[in-house]
């Protein structure tokens, strides 16, 4: 602001306000406009000063001003390559030779400026990388949205050939890069020594079966057996190391060594057995829980990693199963359970006890003796593992909905419109592992009992013949079909029934939908089967009776003898009412056969109980029951 026009008021002194430094006036035009000289900026100062330097004197008379060997500051920031470095070195050498050690007042300044420029370039690059998180950025060559769609399609149609060529070229370029990388890699691989090679091969085969990860310089493996849930728990990981080369000799099978946790450096088995409560010694001797600390760590070096890892995982699994069972035994309310020295004893029923035992063995090769009932041990293990590998959470496919851990039986509940009551029943979920083990064991006991009884009866009873087979057998439910038949009498038909065994009881289901409950008692089962054999005899009697034109008077299936034992009876007479046969069938004895003679036309004689003659069953003619009776019918026919 050049001047402020002073007020023309009468009083006071005129003061003119001006800036302290103002631009120098170059000229004043005829119209009164002032033109100023712009003050010098820094570069002008430098230029002015540079004019004062005798350049010719500094660089020598023969040198030319147009020496482009000098480094451009712009090119520096892009990162010096090897070639450039060499060039710079050559240039500086050249300069040194020409100018000597002291090149003038600006040399150090230029050097520092250049260095700081480099630093700033590096800083900018690093900042850019940290901010954008990418070193390279792919930019589209031509943005298709910029141009009109119609034009583009036209172009595409026109330049299909061109595009093909471009694509092929791009592919060829990419291929070239890959080939180059492959060559470099090949070179690297061939460079590494044989030991490294073997180690890597072994590591690869280890990775096929075990989870492995690398943290820093350490390679860790996971012994955990869970599919879902946390992996690499600290107490379930093992270290992978390269075996040292001893005396230049390399063991090709053991160049990889593993170190499993100390407490897993022992082999474990879990055995399940059924014991009778007879005051015998149920528990093992006490073993110190810190016994594993004495394990020799050197032993790991002699064992192949695949065996060592298998053993360690097995130990982990057995330990986890046992601790889970222990936990559930504590929570269980309706049963009695004792835990002592690695043995868990649970009351089954009656005099039976379920004994689950966790045993440790040394960490050495060899067979471990199988104890207890192998089947029960396998069942326990299988149930535990299948629990671990089941996805309990239901996945929603079409919509995002809250994840539920409802049991599998409820997964289609919506579509089936399952009522609320049933939903409640179904949502109870799986029973605890211990409860299921107890059920399997109970069922196992019952199956053994039933099998023994059925085998015994089938072996003992020749007339009629008894055959039985399993129809269905699962862990908690089994069903056997029993068929009773008489040889040479195919027309009589067979009597067949099912023996169903659950975890609680044995029951017989007959064809007539009659259910005979035998609870857990094998004697009852035996009696029931024998009773059904009697029933078969009764059927054959009535059939033979009809065949020989006799008249059956009664056929009592529910009769009992004086002691109350079931004794089905059969009473028949010939057509003239002159002869009568009375048969009593016993469960555990031979049948009793009585005959009677009465006079023709006197029916009272048949009703009367007196006058029966007992026959000796053994001495009757015939090889089987049916034959004997048939012969008797024929003999007494008339």
């Amino acid at each position, binding site marked *: 602001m050049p001047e402020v026009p002073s007020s023309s008021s009468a009083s006071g002194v005129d003061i003119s306000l001006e800036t302290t430094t103002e631009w120098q006036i170059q000229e004043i035009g005829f119209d009164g406009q002032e033109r100023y000289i712009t003050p010098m900026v820094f570069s002008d100062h430098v230029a002015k000063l540079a004019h004062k330097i005798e350049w010719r004197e500094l660089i020598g008379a023969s040198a030319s001003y147009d020496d482009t060997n000098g480094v451009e500051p712009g090119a520096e920031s892009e990162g010096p390559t090897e070639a450039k470095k060499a060039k710079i070195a050559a240039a500086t050498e050249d300069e040194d030779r020409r100018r000597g050690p002291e090149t003038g007042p600006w040399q150090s300044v230029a050097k520092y400026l250049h260095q700081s420029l480099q630093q700033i370039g590096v800083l900018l690059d690093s900042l850019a990388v940290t901010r954008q998180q990418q070193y390279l950025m792919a930019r589209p060559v031509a943005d298709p949205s910029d141009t009109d769609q119609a034009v583009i399609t036209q172009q595409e149609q026109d330049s299909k050939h061109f595009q093909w060529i471009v694509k092929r070229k791009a592919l060829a370029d990419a291929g070239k890069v890959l080939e180059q990388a492959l060559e470099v890699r090949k070179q690297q691989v061939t460079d590494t020594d044989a030991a490294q090679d073997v180690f890597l091969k072994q590591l690869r085969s280890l990775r096929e079966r075990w989870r492995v990860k690398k943290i820093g310089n350490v390679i860790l493996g996971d012994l955990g057996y869970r599919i879902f849930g946390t992996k690499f728990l600290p107490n379930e990981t093992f270290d992978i190391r390269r075996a040292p080369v001893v005396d230049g000799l390399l063991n090709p099978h053991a160049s990889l060594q593993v170190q499993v946790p100390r407490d897993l450096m022992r082999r474990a088995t879990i055995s399940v057995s059924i014991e009778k409560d007879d005051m015998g010694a149920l528990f093992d001797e006490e073993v110190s829980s810190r016994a594993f600390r004495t394990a020799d760590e050197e032993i790991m070096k002699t064992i192949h990693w695949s065996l060592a890892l298998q053993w360690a995982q097995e130990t982990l699994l057995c330990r986890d199963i046992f601790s889970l069972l222990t936990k559930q035994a504590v929570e269980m309310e309706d049963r009695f359970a004792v835990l002592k020295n690695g043995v868990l004893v649970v009351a089954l029923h009656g005099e039976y006890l379920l004994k689950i035992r966790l045993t440790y063995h040394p960490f050495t090769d060899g067979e471990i003796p199988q104890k207890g009932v192998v089947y029960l041990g396998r069942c326990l293990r299988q149930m535990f593992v299948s629990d671990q590998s089941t996805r309990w959470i239901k996945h*929603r496919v079409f*919509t995002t909905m809250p994840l539920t851990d409802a049991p599998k039986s*409820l997964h289609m509940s*919506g579509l089936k*419109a*399952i*009522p*609320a009551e049933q939903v409640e029943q179904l949502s109870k979920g799986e029973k605890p592992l211990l409860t299921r083990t107890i059920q399997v064991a109970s069922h196992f006991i019952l199956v053994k009992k039933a099998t023994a009884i059925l085998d015994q009866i089938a072996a003992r009873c020749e007339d009629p013949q008894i055959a039985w087979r399993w129809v269905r057998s699962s862990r908690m439910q089994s069903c056997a079909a029993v068929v009773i038949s008489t040889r040479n009498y195919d027309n009589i038909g067979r009597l067949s029934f099912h023996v169903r065994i659950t975890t609680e009881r044995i029951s017989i289901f007959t064809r007539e939908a009659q259910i005979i409950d035998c609870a857990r008692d094998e004697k009852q089962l035996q009696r029931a089967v024998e009773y059904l054999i009697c029933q078969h005899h009764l059927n054959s009697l009535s059939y033979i009776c009809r065949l020989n034109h006799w008249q059956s008077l009664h056929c009592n299936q529910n009769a009992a003898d004086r002691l109350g034992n079931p004794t089905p009876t059969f009473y028949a007479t010939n057509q003239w009412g002159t002869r009568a046969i009375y048969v009593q069938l016993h469960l555990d004895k031979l049948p009793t056969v009585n005959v009677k003679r009465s006079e023709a036309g006197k029916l009272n004689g048949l009703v009367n109980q007196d006058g029966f003659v007992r026959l000796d069953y053994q001495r009757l003619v015939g090889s089987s029951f049916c034959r004997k009776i048939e012969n008797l019918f024929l003999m007494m026919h008339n």
Partner: protein
Amino acid sequence: MGVAWVFEYPLGDATSRIGAQAVKEIERQLEAVGAERDGHYFVDSMPYRPNVNVQSGISLVYLLHHSEFPHSTFTIAPDLKERPGLARAVSDRGFDLILGKLGSGLTPDPPGKFECTGSKYVLKDFAVRVGSASMASSFKGVVVEIEYRPLSVTSMSTALMREFVRSVLPVLSAETPTFISRMQAHEQYYPIDTLHQYLDLFLELRKRTTLQPQPQAQPVQPSSFQPPPQQNAPPVQQ
């Protein structure tokens, strides 16, 4: 699963008796017979209307829920007269969420929402649900659902149901629900049939009350089968 009959309890002269009183009356009758109360129940029905531009392709559907089937959503399109059996579906509750995504095709119609709440009574194998139906919080009528649980064939249970209704709720004994009488002999009864009966009843109640203000001497207008006037308005775009 079982066979259920759904009735509307006749209120007689609507001015003299209120719904709540009628409900109490029924409950007293049930308790007198020996039925025990077993919690509450809840049925709702929400109409979903097709948008203007898709009306030719999609028909009006109703989404129903029943507290007896807590995991299910029932979809019924009663207007599809030519194939009435096919226009019904049972699905997971998640179907509600899927329908929410189909906003461009079907939009909910909250003013037409029916709700029925009440209590459940159990008498041996029978379950009786007594509730009051309301549309947009205005009372519409009393609904009684009688379910015989052990059976699932409609025709086999008819005589037994009739006897039960006659002895327990004699007021209802004159009628058999039209839905049940329309079902063929030995036809399997499914839970969605119960919901279908509810829906039929709701539509009936709605139609009746919208017609009530008109003088009864006048013949029924042909437009009475169309939805009420506020439904004819184009759906609000959200």
